[in-house]
């Protein structure tokens, strides 16, 4: 299968007064045309930095490795090439729809902007923008076109942000926590809207989220990140059915399920993600892990294949598997 997006060994370092800090440490990721991939992890695990690094939106960071879109290298690419890719081939949706919209520009101008930048005539851009807003469920789109962001509700604003991301019909949509800032009731609506619009336009989607709960019905493949590293990846059924990494299992256990009745509170993983500057040696997860071996404290586990397309970076999971094969 030819991949649409190929990320190889992506590393992102930020300079701080106390020296460089590696925020992303060797990420591998692929997205095929039309595929839905979920990038999952708690906040602070480096998901959002990944999204911005792909688009070259981190001017102050040092980004190394390779990000290819249809074979076109984006790391270190010229500003001109990046501008052709941004908006046009890759659309981006941020978490907070309020801060994502320019408060002093009308909704309409902001939605039309990706088209106007590419020389589409204003009347044409306006028509397409109104059509798209209407398609995305903005009622009275034509009348509300010249309203300002503060006149829209949170859910409506996020529809506008999605419209901005998809209006130039990109091949890939990167949605960074698209529903997190929204009302629970609206979350499902916005997610299914994303699902529909992506299907209609045969867009690939990289869904970045901390919430495994929204992944199941949406994505085909899941990549789990922890403290700037990839810890597990595989098809959605594999991850939900046979997760190997203790972190993934912890995340899964924290997802409320309709088919199980929980007694009391949902289990959570104790502690929190270390900051990149204080990432522990060895497996970054070991201080929070319930089943550690000596190697966890000293060696970074490699991402090793478990089953078809299912890979895990965990000493315990790997050793366990080896013992099983030896017997």
């Amino acid at each position, binding site marked *: 299968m030819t991949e649409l997006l190929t990320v190889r060994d992506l590393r992102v370092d930020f300079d701080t007064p106390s020296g460089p800090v590696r925020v992303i440490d060797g990420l591998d990721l692929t997205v095929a045309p039309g595929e839905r991939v979920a990038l999952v992890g708690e906040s602070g695990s480096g998901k959002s*930095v990944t999204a911005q690094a792909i688009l070259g939106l981190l001017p102050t960071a040092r980004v190394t490795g390779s990000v290819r879109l249809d074979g076109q290298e984006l790391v270190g690419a010229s500003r001109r090439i990046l501008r052709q890719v941004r908006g046009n081939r890759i659309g981006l949706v941020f978490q907070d729809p309020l801060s994502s919209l320019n408060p002093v520009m009308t909704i309409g101008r902001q939605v039309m902007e990706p088209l106007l930048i590419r020389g589409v005539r204003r009347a044409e851009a306006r028509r397409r923008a109104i059509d798209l807003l209407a398609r995305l469920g903005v009622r009275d789109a034509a009348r509300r076109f010249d309203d300002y962001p503060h006149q829209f509700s949170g859910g409506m604003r996020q529809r506008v942000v999605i419209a901005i991301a998809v209006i130039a019909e990109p091949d890939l949509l990167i949605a960074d926590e698209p529903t997190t800032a929204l009302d629970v009731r609206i979350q499902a609506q916005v997610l299914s809207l994303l699902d529909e619009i992506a299907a209609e336009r045969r867009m690939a989607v990289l869904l970045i989220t901390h919430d495994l709960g929204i992944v199941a019905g949406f994505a085909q493949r899941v990549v789990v990140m922890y403290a700037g590293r990839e810890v597990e990846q595989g098809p959605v059924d594999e991850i939900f059915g046979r997760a190997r990494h203790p972190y993934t299992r912890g995340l899964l256990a924290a997802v409320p399920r309709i088919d199980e009745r929980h007694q009391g509170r949902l289990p959570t993983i104790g502690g929190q993600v270390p900051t990149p500057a204080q990432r522990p040696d060895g497996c970054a997860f070991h201080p929070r892990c319930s089943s550690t071996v000596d190697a966890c404290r000293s060696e970074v586990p490699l991402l090793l294949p478990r089953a078809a397309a299912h890979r895990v970076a965990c000493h315990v999971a790997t050793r366990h598997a080896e013992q099983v094969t030896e017997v």
Partner: protein
Amino acid sequence: MAAPPVPPVPLVSRRRRLRVGDWLERAAVVVAALVILVAVVGPFVAPHDPYRVALDQSLQPPSAEHWFGTDADGRDVFSRVLAGARVTLLATFVVIAVATVIGVVLGTAAALGGRIVDEILMRICDIGLSFPAMILALGLAAAMGPSLESAVIALALTWWPGYARLVRTLVRETLHAEYVDAARSIGMSRWRLITRHVLPNSLDTLYVQITLDVAAVILVISGLSFVGVGAQPPSAEWGALVAAGRNNVVNGWWVVALPGAAIALTAIAFNLVGDRLRVRNDPTLGNGGKA
């Protein structure tokens, strides 16, 4: 940023930070200290008598004998600038001191005196802050009769509302701090509470504002003298020095240029020191690259 994507460590551009700023700030501290020193010892180290007229020495260009040249009356400009440092700085100091005292008293009164007192004082501040200090001071000084004293009094009377408002805010903030509650709970008297706890904790911010105001006051004071409502001839006040030379600029640029440069240099130095203090006082500005 969406989510907290970036580590909670303050980020700095990967390009090396320009160090020129730090260097400038250090130089500014030295210059400001030097200006204050000159204000204290200036008249004693002046090579010539700053007030002695020598008409045969009129408008001599800068030389080894007269570093800054001589003015139309043959007086040594360098000596006059040295002597003028005391006049200008003392006037500035008095303006700020008086304005600060009025501001602290009225600001504290507004913060503690109940709604009506607060409302009246703050509306007066609004009125005061609604006008350029320069023009009000000009009118007041003209009314009192042009002299440096008039200018100083007039400026002090127009400068305090800024301090009053600042002190009011600071006192209100401090009053809500926990340690003040603690002090109150052990039965400390109101007066003691204010003088021992509330005011001292408000002063840091006030100092920063005062330092930043030094340059502004110097500029206005010298401006008033230049216009003729401040220091009168033969005073060596810096603005008066510039005014005295203005009719002879073409024959003696140094009489105007060098005293004016002294004003500018002093203002720059105090501004930079004030900025430095502000950054120190407010850690959140540390890496913002502001100021």
